[in-house]
């Protein structure tokens, strides 16, 4: 199959270490296909290692087994951050882990994209999916800023926008630890200066990013990922909004601190960006 031919040997070996319940066809019950994962990670590897030259810190904070929610900031006009975080957990953890993202609903209406996201385990962002994946002891990656986060303009770079609170109720309900992370570099890799709203309406996308060089293609800007210690909160998800918002604010503050740490790290480098 074409997907097998696209898979590089390093990825092939690491795929064997994944703890997903593949059947004889290499399919898991959520429709994830081992062959598609192989091609996907083979595409991510050069992007992660050479194009964005991603440096990952603190990956040991991600549990080696069992459920966890990986919560991060959106950085850049396209979800490059999600792709690089997924790559980090696959290439830096031993054994590797596969992170399931929560995809914007519009993507599932698009031909080609809809089945591709499904085959690589990136399901529509629905609470039912989140609960199921955590109860299956999978890794769930959530960006509580949602499309508001990727829709940030360059002038607002690294300012966290409002966090949704749904993730916190699900974390409490499923007793999942929250691993905060920050992605630094995406805003420079894909600086968005304008949103083409007409094009967005036409395609059903929440926004359509326009860069100084027009096309929404990320530049090869070095990026860093910072993971922090897991956070565990008391409760069962039935708490009042005030309590939940308090918990979410703690997660947001941790991520903001991680972003600051990352930007400090860059400033420390000769000629580093701010």
């Amino acid at each position, binding site marked *: 199959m074409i997907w097998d031919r696209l898979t590089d040997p390093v990825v092939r070996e690491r795929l064997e270490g994944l703890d997903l319940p593949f*059947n*004889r*066809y290499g*399919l*898991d*019950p*959520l*429709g994830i*296909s081992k062959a598609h994962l192989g091609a996907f990670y083979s595409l991510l590897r050069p992007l992660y290692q050479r194009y964005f030259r991603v440096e990952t810190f603190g990956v040991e904070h991600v549990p080696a087994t069992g459920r966890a929610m990986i919560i991060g900031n959106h950085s850049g006009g396209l979800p490059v951050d999600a792709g690089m975080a997924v790559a980090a957990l696959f290439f830096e953890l031993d054994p590797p882990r596969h992170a399931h993202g929560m995809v914007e*609903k519009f993507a*599932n*209406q*698009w*031909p*080609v994209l*809809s*089945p591709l996201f*499904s*085959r690589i385990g990136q*399901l*529509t962002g*629905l609470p*039912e*999916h989140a609960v*199921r994946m955590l109860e299956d002891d999978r890794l769930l990656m959530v960006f509580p800023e949602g499309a508001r986060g990727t829709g940030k303009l360059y002038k607002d770079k690294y300012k966290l926008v409002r966090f949704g609170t749904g993730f916190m109720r699900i974390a409490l309900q499923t007793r999942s630890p929250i691993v905060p992370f920050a992605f630094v570099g995406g805003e420079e890799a894909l600086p968005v200066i304008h949103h083409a709203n007409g094009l967005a309406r036409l395609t059903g996308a929440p926004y359509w990013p326009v860069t100084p060089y027009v096309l929404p293609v990320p530049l090869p800007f070095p990026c860093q990922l910072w993971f922090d210690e897991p956070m565990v909160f008391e409760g069962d998800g039935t708490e009042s909004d005030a309590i939940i918002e308090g918990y979410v604010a703690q997660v947001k503050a941790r991520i903001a601190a991680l972003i600051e740490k990352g930007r400090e790290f860059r400033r420390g480098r000769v000629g580093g960006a701010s």
Partner: protein
Amino acid sequence: MKVLLAGISGALARRVTHYLLECGHTVIGLDRRPWPDPPAGVTVYRHDVRKRPAEDVFRTERPEAVIHMATVTHFSARREERYRINLHGTRAIFERAHEFGVKRCVFVGRHTIYGAAPDAPLYRKEDEPPLGMATFPELADMAAADLYAGSALWRYPEVRTAVLRLVYTLGPSRRGTLAGYLNGKRVPTVLGFDPLFQFMHEEDAARAIAEALDHDLNGIYNVTGPQPVPLSLLCRATGRPAVPLPEPLFPKLVGKLGLSWLPRGALAHIKYPIVVDGAAFAQATGFKARYDEVNTMEAYRWA
């Protein structure tokens, strides 16, 4: 137990009959269609479930349990007839069951009533509303029958009622909704979409229906078998040639050039998945499918 099986002459219902007999039940059947050679001891009454002679079968035979499989799909009946058979037939069965002291009722419905949509979750549970009618009007009568059967839970509380929502069945008989789609010379799919399809072997489906009677079920249950597979793999593993059509051309080409026919509303069902969670049924009955997805597709292929 004395079991009345409505719709006994259907392919799946005949298999259910065998499992019921194996479990030691006495079986009587009710169907407009003939079953020329039923197993020994099985009486088949050739009546319409909505008509008076069918009522007399309840009166004279006094079944303790009823399994209702006398429903039809868009493949075999027109709209008005489907409403008459599916909705009014279901009503008649539950009213007779109540009137003549039936203790248990099993309604056999379909998982397709949940409907396929881009924003629908995988592994839908029984409390999800049926959304199938929005995109697929041909499903409205089945959804109405399913909900009517569910209303028997409060309408006739003395009759223990199980509403089963079965995933597609597949197997050597090459009958059923999914087989109807796959049987064409060429299988039309939508270019750029490859949804998960959930099915179970027809023997497993028949056994699940028969075994539902042996448990004190009172509620609505999804009935599932092995894990779902993408439509492209389903076509490949069953040896059916899939022809991906651009969506705008789809309505013009289905039913022509050897492509299987599909109603317009079914388009959503071959773009987006309908995957349901069968955990509640498995937990209540201990049911476990004996055929996995590979055996099931091969059983259809090599029949």
